């Protein structure tokens, strides 16, 4: 239940000579009751870490699919406390991460949110609209409470930014292209030089997200990076057959995992 679990997860995949697979699901989609079975299915399919999205009304880093999932989850009445309660009850050996937006963190109280997340068994927080300049002052406190505030890198990131996040924890969430989440058909040519550049500044594992949807893309990205994050493509698959979400998720993740 502590931050070294993130480190351990990447160490294990490195020893196995492959990238870590990090799928994403939105809590409350298709239903909150499905969250625990989904997490177990993702683990069974071969996930190395799992991101759980806490839906926000205004998800400005998300493309249409994850917006839709958040909208539907909120329409279903899902609340932050319910998600914390459900997550607390999930038994898994895979490190869990929350992905959400800064207002939900701020509203609960930053320290309270971090404490509650830790108690629910969460190892890290991914908050796309909480950039390093605003979150840095909370890094040490979160680290002391066994929660990593995952730093971001983007194709536009400057060298001083990469030097700064070298002091971060967990891994570097690397945005593969300028843009929002959503399935894309190819791996951007700029990705390999970007990951190389990040690694010149930061010793943390580098995981890549935004746009990876097929086993081929996962394989290609996995050759470049330490971790492969898949969100929209998985949620899209769930949307096509929500009644059998856990089975769909397991099959989907297994397909990606076999490709790594």
């Amino acid at each position: 239940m502590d931050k070294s679990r993130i480190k351990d997860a990447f160490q294990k995949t490195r020893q196995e000579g492959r990238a870590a697979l990090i799928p994403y699901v939105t809590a409350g989609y298709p239903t909150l009751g499905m969250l625990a079975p989904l997490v177990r299915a993702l683990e069974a399919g071969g996930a190395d870490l799992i991101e759980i999205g806490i839906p926000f009304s205004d998800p400005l880093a998300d493309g249409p699919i994850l917006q839709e999932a958040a909208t539907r989850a909120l329409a279903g009445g899902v609340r932050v406390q319910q998600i914390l309660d459900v997550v607390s009850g999930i038994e898994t050996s895979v490190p869990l991460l929350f992905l959400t937006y800064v207002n939900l963190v701020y509203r609960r109280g930053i320290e309270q949110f971090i404490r509650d997340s830790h108690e629910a068994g969460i190892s890290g927080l991914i908050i796309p609209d909480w950039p390093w300049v605003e979150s840095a002052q909370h890094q040490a406190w979160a680290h002391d409470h066994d929660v990593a505030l995952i730093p971001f890198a983007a194709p536009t990131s400057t060298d001083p930014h990469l030097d700064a996040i070298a002091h971060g924890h967990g891994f570097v969430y690397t945005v593969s292209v300028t843009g929002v989440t959503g399935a894309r058909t190819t791996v951007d040519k700029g990705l390999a030089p970007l990951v190389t550049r990040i690694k010149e500044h930061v010793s943390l594992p580098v995981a890549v997200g935004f746009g990876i949807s097929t086993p081929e893309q996962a394989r290609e990205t996995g050759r470049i990076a330490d971790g492969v994050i898949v969100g929209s493509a998985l949620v899209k698959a769930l949307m096509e057959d929500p009644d059998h979400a856990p089975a769909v998720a397991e099959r989907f993740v297994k397909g990606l995992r076999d490709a790594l």
Partner: protein
Amino acid sequence: MGKMKLMPDAHGRFGPFGGQYVPETLMPALDELSAAYHQAKTDKSFHEEWMALLKDYVGRPTPLRQAFRMSEKLGFPVYLKREDLNHTGAHKINNTMGQILLARRMGKTRIIAETGAGQHGVATATAAALFGLKAEIYMGAEDVERQALNVYRMRLLGAEVHSVHSGTSTLKDATNEAIRDWVTNVRDTFYVIGSVVGPHPYPMMVRDFQSIIGIEARRQFRQLTSGFPTHIVAPVGGGSNSMGIFYPFRQDPVALIGVEAAGEGIETGRHAATITMAERGILHGSLSYLLQDADGQIQPAHSISAGLDYPGVGPEHAYFHHTGRAQYVSITDQEALDAFHRLAEWEGIIPALESAHAIAWVIKEQKVLESANARVLVNLSGRGDKDVDAVLGYEEGNHGQEPH
């Protein structure tokens, strides 16, 4: 009163408010914008170019004049700063002219903006047309329906209007979509934000561009009366026209009154009175006050005036509220509609529904203001032509519901 600290600080903070809450992808663009703005601000030629445009294209300075019949009816002098007389009919163009000049300086070839009622969209499309730039405007699908004329105006001006169907299909969602576009096309795109909101440096930059209102008004008022008004009253949506007139008076002995939209009444929950609720939160890049639920999910705003229909407010207003430098009050849809008629009858001026909120507060507080020997300056932020159709429809609709 001691000299106020220069705000915002280097981190874009107005006390606890403001900041830069955007994805990492955009952070370098904000730094680039800050640097370009700082450079422009200290460049005499930028200022001269902007002032020449304001004079010969926008039609500034706008008049400031006493509203004599209104003054007589109320029993104390009321003055109007006539932002309704700007080209395109509102204060919004002061800001878009400044930002478009900056975009050109930065070599950005693509312009994007969000709009609610369409006023900022029209002002952005106008400025872009003037310089032959391509503008793309994000507008909530519901607003596209409600404000069909402004959609056509933007298209006439050569802009492309994107109808946004996510969330509540209104201004906040249009803003989300504009930010998504900016994250995607950040290298060649300039995002023209329409109010004193967003991540630093926008709240400061828009305030500075809109401060032309207060700079003129301060000079004009002193020429007219050789004193200060006792009260300055302005409507608050995101807060740009109000901050524009307040800011140059911030160290003067003047009460600053921001009027928010109480919609159908604060108690109904259907309103846009963000500062009245005073709950801190982070949306669209800055920490300020927000309409939100216990979890922090953003609540939809409501006002008859589309320009006030926003669940957030600029961080410097939150700071002015926090320090007590300005007071924030609210006016219902019905009170604003009544004032819309009063000003038309008294002064031959049809105000924008946003501006009618400020007029309504002055009428509502008549007794208090009269006994205080007030001299009230109202920022008439825009003209009401855009609202005439909607008001007519609203009143006919209401009339139809009346029992006979």
